[in-house]
């Protein structure tokens, strides 16, 4: 029987230790993550430096008009897919202190962590200060048990 996943919204930005705990949990569930570079929005040298630091983990790069959480009406963006590993997580944990700092011009945008089995695990819409997990209830229980600080900030969607 297929157990349905639903959105569990982060009601506040995970920062510091909580942010890094989520990255650590992502390593257990996911094998890749994506970052977006919007064409209509400038990027500065510090964002380019992040791309450079992650370049060794790059799997593929393609043009997209939508990614989880966001759909562009006219334009396309560059979506880069990276291998999720201890090394790439170390970069993600070092270059920002919170999930919503993933925003141009200073950083690439909207990290999405992808399950080994396919489908997003964590979706970010950083410029809207919005993020959510796509999980089953059982996964939610397990996540909150292992990262108790999440229990105060996770809200079940419809």
């Amino acid at each position, binding site marked *: 029987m297929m157990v349905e996943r639903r959105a569990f919204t982060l009601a506040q930005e995970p920062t510091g230790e909580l942010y890094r705990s989520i990255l650590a949990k992502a390593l257990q569930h996911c094998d890749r993550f994506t970052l977006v570079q919007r064409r209509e*929005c400038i990027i500065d040298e510090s964002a380019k430096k992040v791309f450079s630091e992650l370049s060794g983990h790059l799997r593929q790069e393609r043009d997209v008009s939508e990614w989880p959480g966001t759909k562009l009406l006219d334009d396309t963006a560059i979506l880069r897919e990276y291998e999720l590993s201890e090394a790439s997580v170390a970069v993600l944990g070092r270059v920002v202190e919170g999930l919503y700092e993933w925003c141009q011009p200073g950083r690439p945008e909207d990290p999405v962590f992808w399950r080994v089995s396919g489908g997003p695990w964590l979706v970010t819409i950083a410029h809207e200060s919005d993020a959510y997990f796509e999980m089953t209830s059982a996964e939610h229980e397990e996540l909150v048990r292992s990262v108790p600080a999440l229990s105060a900030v996770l809200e079940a969607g419809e």
Partner: protein
Amino acid sequence: MSGLRRFVLLFFVLAAVVWPCLASAATSARPETRVKGFDLVAPLFVGVENSRNPENHRAKLDANYMFASDYLLAAEGVIGAESKAVGRSFGELLADETGAIKIPGTGTRTFTADQSALVDLAKEAQRTGVTRQEADVLRSWANETGLPFRGPETHPGRPIGQFPHMHLGPINHIPVN
């Protein structure tokens, strides 16, 4: 008759004494925070409350307007009054703002005259909405003047930004028709 006169006199005396006290009490009941330039004023909690309660969406928009989304608005003044979203309203801050913004990691800057004019247009566009063609024009002007621009875009299924919108500088969720 003289009783009535005494009553009227007493009424005015009481009004003169009591009214300023009531007004003062009403004012002091509104929590106020005096901020200096570039103080960060809890944008995090705006998002928190907004996602919990969609009816606070307007408060988020107001706050975004103040905080320029991810940017920190320069402010000298008083943040006062109550709001469900953040426990504070930013109306007074808006009136006092200097027009300068600070973008994390890029230091402090103020709007140029061109940027300021474009922000004024964006404020009007937020009220009226724009066509796709107008959005294109605003985007090219944003690029020319160096103001951040995002969109047009939607966030399907999310509490914020399901409708087609764009972001220009500090002005968020400008409807695109």
